[in-house]
């Protein structure tokens, strides 16, 4: 077991997971991984392709089921895959998985109103108002009635981010959400995430852009073969890495 280092100052961690393990048939997988995050904290996961970052996000999101381990939200343990945990997803825990795409058969507006109506139970009118507001923030409102396939890749990624944020979650699990964005939008989305954290939101994010990781996060976790190899503040981990694999990883970036 890797050591569980607590980086929480408050008494109750807002998002914590203990001993999460997931093994695939080919023997690869993730875990055991444990971590505690307090409200307002932005944690970035670093690591080579296939090191288990995305798997960890998918488990935390409840999309994949872990073989073992517990997840606690606001100090309450959630049984993995239980109806209560399912209820959190989307509404309390915002999730954007790697390669997420808008729904191609729904207009931009409908892409946002569907979860607002189905998950939050808003009326059509309320949902449309709130969706329009969010589309405006991502400069997608003029095309709200169009289908997503007329959009560029970056615009579609913005739409996916809007679809997540419109539900106003308190936690964000983000897997490479700026991969298709231009520098300006990368900046704006990073700003949105930072603002989200300032208001007490907790974020777990995967990104391969180290300058982004440095500016956005206050805790960095470096993973190798499914387990945490090194973790700490961005300055500590990125500027004076102890692990030699991590040193090479940073050098190559």
């Amino acid at each position, binding site marked *: 077991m890797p050591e569980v280092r607590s980086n929480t100052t408050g008494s109750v961690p807002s998002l914590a997971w203990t001993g999460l393990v997931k093994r695939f048939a080919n023997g690869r997988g993730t875990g055991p991984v444990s971590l505690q995050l307090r409200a307002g904290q932005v944690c970035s996961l670093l690591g080579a392709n296939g090191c288990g970052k995305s798997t960890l996000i998918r488990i935390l*999101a*409840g*999309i994949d089921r872990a073989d073992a381990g517990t997840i606690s939200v606001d100090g309450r343990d959630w049984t993995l895959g239980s109806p209560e945990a*399912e*209820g*959190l*997803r*989307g*509404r309390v825990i915002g*999730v*954007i*998985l790697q*390669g*997420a*795409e*808008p*729904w*191609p*058969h729904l207009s931009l507006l409908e892409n946002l109103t*569907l*979860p607002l109506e*189905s*998950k939050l139970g808003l009326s059509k009118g309320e949902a449309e108002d709130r969706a329009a507001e969010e589309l405006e923030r991502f400069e997608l409102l003029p095309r709200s009635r169009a*289908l*997503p*396939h*007329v959009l560029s*890749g970056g615009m579609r990624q913005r739409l*996916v981010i809007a*679809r*997540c944020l419109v*539900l106003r979650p308190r936690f964000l699990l983000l897997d490479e959400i700026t991969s298709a964005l231009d520098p300006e939008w990368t900046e704006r989305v990073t700003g949105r995430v930072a603002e989200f954290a300032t208001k007490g939101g907790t974020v777990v994010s995967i990104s391969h852009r180290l300058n982004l990781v440095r500016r956005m996060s206050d805790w960095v976790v470096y993973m190798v073969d499914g387990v945490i190899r090194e973790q700490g503040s961005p300055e500590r981990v990125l500027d004076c890495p102890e692990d030699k694999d991590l040193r090479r990883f940073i050098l190559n970036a």
Partner: protein
Amino acid sequence: MYQWDFGWVWTYRAALIAAAWVTIKLNVVVLVLGSVLGMIIAACRGSRFAVVRYLAIAYVDVFRTIPILVLLIWAFFCIPVLVRGAQFTPWTCAVAVLSINLSAFAAEIIRAGIEAVPTTLVEGGLSCGLSQRQTLRFVVLPIAIRNMIPPLVGQYINSIKLSVLASVIAVPELLQKTTDLASQVYRPLEFYTALAVAFLVLLLPGTIWSRRLETKEHVERRSAET
């Protein structure tokens, strides 16, 4: 040079219209029954129970493989010998065999349509907190149905064309009546030409429509992926 005389066809128009009506009725029943049966088989293929899944796969493979003409003849002539007292009317046999044949192909089209829905879109539904049921209803099925329609229309047209095979067990449909009249008045060229033209007129719009659906869907899907 052959002297065409379509007057004969016109003379027997009442009998031909009656036969066309049989063909239309037969096909409407087959399309409905075959589609419903196809959905059931497709659902069985996705069952939690392995036995049900394998039975559905066996059904699809068996009925896609046996030539429909063989099946028709077998159902009409062999079943009464094997099972005492089980003599079905030509109509019942034709409906059953054509529906089963269509359902085997339709089941595959439905399954493929659902499987072709990208996982990222399904997970998008779950990510936004939709339940499995809501994801199925609002995300998977609408996209899957769009995937299914062009190949299903093609399969329907195919099934309609195959329905003339019912003539071998004396269902009084178009081909059977045409053969009958052509030999009675000794005018096969006129009658079979009229039959070919009739099918062309009936099915060409459907064929063109199915191709247009395919290109439109194709273009939409391609641009959605880039």
